[in-house]
């Protein structure tokens, strides 16, 4: 069974600084995708970044980047130049590469941005 673990229930960062959120996962499959979702108080789940397991290059989306360590089954999210609007719950998620695309989520990390 696939499991996703986020060991940091809460994190805080000063505005304009950099923060890294951790995620580990467990799977026996070789083809899969990993995601980071952001959930602000409005509850809308917003996709931040995705990573295909077969790609060695780490994904980047503007101020958001990942450190994907496939052998270690680690998938961390780095937020650079943190902004007040980045404050939210962040969820790491996994899905299989083929067949159903339902997601398996971690328990989330609450990020606070300090002005």
């Amino acid at each position, binding site marked *: 069974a696939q499991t996703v673990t986020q060991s940091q229930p809460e994190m805080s960062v000063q505005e304009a600084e950099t923060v890294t959120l951790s995620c580990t996962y467990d799977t026996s499959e070789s083809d899969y995708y990993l995601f980071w979702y952001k959930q602000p108080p409005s509850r809308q789940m*917003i996709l931040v970044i995705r990573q295909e397991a077969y790609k060695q290059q780490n994904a980047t989306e503007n101020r958001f980047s990942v450190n994907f360590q496939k052998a270690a089954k680690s998938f961390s999210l780095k937020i650079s130049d943190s902004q007040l609007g980045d404050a939210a719950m962040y969820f790491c998620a996994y899905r299989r590469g083929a067949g159903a*695309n*339902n*997601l398996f989520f971690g*328990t989330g990390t609450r990020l606070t941005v300090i002005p």
Partner: protein
Amino acid sequence: DAGVTQSPTHLIKTRGQHVTLRCSPISGHKSVSWYQQVLGQGPQFIFQYYEKEERGRGNFPDRFSARQFPNYSSELNVNALLLGDSALYLCASSWDLRYEQYFGPGTRLTVT
């Protein structure tokens, strides 16, 4: 383009009652998935439908059921509500089973 829509936004039910939650996918999307998010937890997969057929089911009791209509909208039904069913219920849609899921704003269900 309209995103995934869900109704109602929130509702309050009493133990033992049943509830129906509704979801309209993004236009053109043929797959709908349902997730339950208990306060303080990540979403848990309940059901996935594609082309009106059930394609996946999470570890939820038979009190939970769903269906997808010819226009690809979907309903989630929960019978004999328990206090533990109180949660945010999220609907997500995708083109098919290969592509990204896009989430709706959720329905907040409170069972008293």
